[in-house]
């Protein structure tokens, strides 16, 4: 029996107002509760446009011609305002600077719950829980712009989380971060997926960092979905032809196989690659 998907996009097409070409063409996408999906593709392929469709920014904030159906948590997105959808779908943006509004961390975490009209005690409870999970209790009165990039993104993620949405979409959240902070953010997102059953859609170019956490990778090209499946299956010849940054380990193995060496598997982590190579070395 098919479970009702948390996100159901059917035959979605969209053209920005005043644009000559469409940004999305016949998108069909189904995401089940608890899935971790990576959305990737070259710049301009439509990933960001698709994300905006899922939380209502399109068509309410960005007008244009939209056809097709978008359902999130049972709601028809097209007929709801983004601020209504905010408690079901959270969107975390690339630049931490432009999504933190308040002069203290505490108040930024409270901003979402305040907006949806929650009673003060409930807001306080959620803010305390967020500060505790992040271990940021000492930072509660600090101004967000005084924090490091990694800390800011953590606050941004939890500022969305305090509204308790079921789906969290993150649009290239690690772009501005150094590798160590990027890794911490991805681990945090992974935790939210595993421990709190949040459904995650992560837009990312850095597939070598993020693939290990994903149940599925969706590749877009020129407004269409061209590949959709588990990471190891998706990182095939076609992926190279599109030009996305397939993890180097997968690339390594594919080339070895082309040169007729007997290595098995499509590793996306160093651990996997190591195990497979040791196998191959020992076998011969």
């Amino acid at each position, binding site marked *: 029996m098919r479970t009702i998907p948390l996100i159901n996009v059917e035959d979605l097409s969209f053209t920005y107002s005043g644009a000559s070409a469409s940004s999305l063409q016949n998108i069909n996408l189904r995401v089940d509760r608890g899935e971790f999906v990576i959305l990737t593709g*070259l*710049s*301009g392929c439509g990933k960001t446009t698709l994300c905006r469709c899922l939380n209502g920014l399109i068509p309410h904030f960005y007008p244009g011609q939209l056809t097709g159906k978008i359902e999130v948590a049972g709601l028809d997105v097209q007929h709801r305002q983004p601020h209504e959808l905010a408690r079901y779908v959270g969107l975390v943006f690339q630049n931490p600077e432009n999504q933190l509004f308040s002069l203290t961390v505490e108040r930024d975490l409270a901003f979402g719950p305040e907006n949806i009209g929650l009673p003060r005690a409930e807001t306080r409870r959620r803010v305390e829980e967020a500060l505790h999970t992040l271990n940021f209790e000492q930072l509660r009165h600090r101004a967000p712009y005084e924090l490091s990039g990694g800390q800011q993104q953590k606050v941004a993620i939890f500022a969305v989380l305090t509204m308790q949405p079921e789906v969290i979409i993150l649009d290239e959240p690690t772009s501005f971060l150094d590798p160590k902070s990027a890794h911490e953010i991805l681990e945090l997102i992974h935790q939210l997926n595993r421990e709190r059953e949040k459904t995650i859609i992560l837009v990312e170019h850095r597939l070598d960092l993020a693939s290990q956490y994903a149940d599925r990778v969706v590749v877009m090209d020129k407004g269409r979905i061209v590949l959709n499946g588990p990471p190891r299956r998706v990182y095939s010849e076609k992926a190279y032809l599109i030009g996305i940054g397939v993890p180097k380990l997968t690339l390594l193995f594919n080339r070895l196989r082309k040169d007729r*060496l007997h*290595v098995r598997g499509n590793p996306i982590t160093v651990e996997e690659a190591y195990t497979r190579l040791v196998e191959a070395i*020992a076998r011969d």
Partner: protein
Amino acid sequence: MIEIDDLSFTFPNGYKALNGVDLTISDSEFIALMGENGAGKTTLIKHLNGLLKPTRGDVTVDGVNTKRASVASISRKVGLVFQNPDHQLFCETVREEVAFALRNFGHKEDVISKRVQWILQTLDLSQYADSSPFTLSGGERKRVALASVLAWDPKYIILDEPTIGQDYLQKDRLRNFLLQLTSQGKTVLIVTHDVEFVAECKPTIVLLSKGKVVGQGPSEEILTNPEVVDRCSLTLPQIAQLTRRLEPYGADKKIIDVYSAISEVKRLIRRHR
């Protein structure tokens, strides 16, 4: 050659960003300046074209001390490409935008139009010559910013975080272009924390931490040293992590790029036959 001699810099608000940096940048070098956020990388590169003057110490560009020269005069030799193209675009057409610096430097109109045409072609922007830069995509705007600096053909080209937000193809193209520039005799310095990008083009690495140089050397040496890498909030490139794990099997842990790894793995497998 750019010589940085015991450079220290303190901001007007008292924050000491640079703490005695010593560095020599030779001709035709390809350098990656890396380090954690707040290490002082951007502050350092602003000293290289005179935007900032040292609080203590000296910066000398081809024999000229930056304390005694204007930004405009040093910029003829040192081209600085900033991170965000939107902080510079203001002209009605891409052509005008790219010509801006050339006009400021006093070149003649016929030289300017030739140079503009050449650089637009080199960076695959000719089709946009008469478009407004504001209508271009993010990646294209970044290329326009780069073109506007390369147009005056500076000897030293410095790029501040050129890979942020770029997809794989764009980075690949950028990497090839930078290598091409060095082969043409230019000196290229990039400020970056993109370890995977650096692992594939292998420039000399200068590691900056808390305003001091804490490491300097070939990529293969620096990026395979876990303590120094961790200290600067970086990670080992994935390939380096793998070759490090395979060391007990005879792997060379100094291999950091994919193509060398392919050869290395083949060697290991054949050796164990």
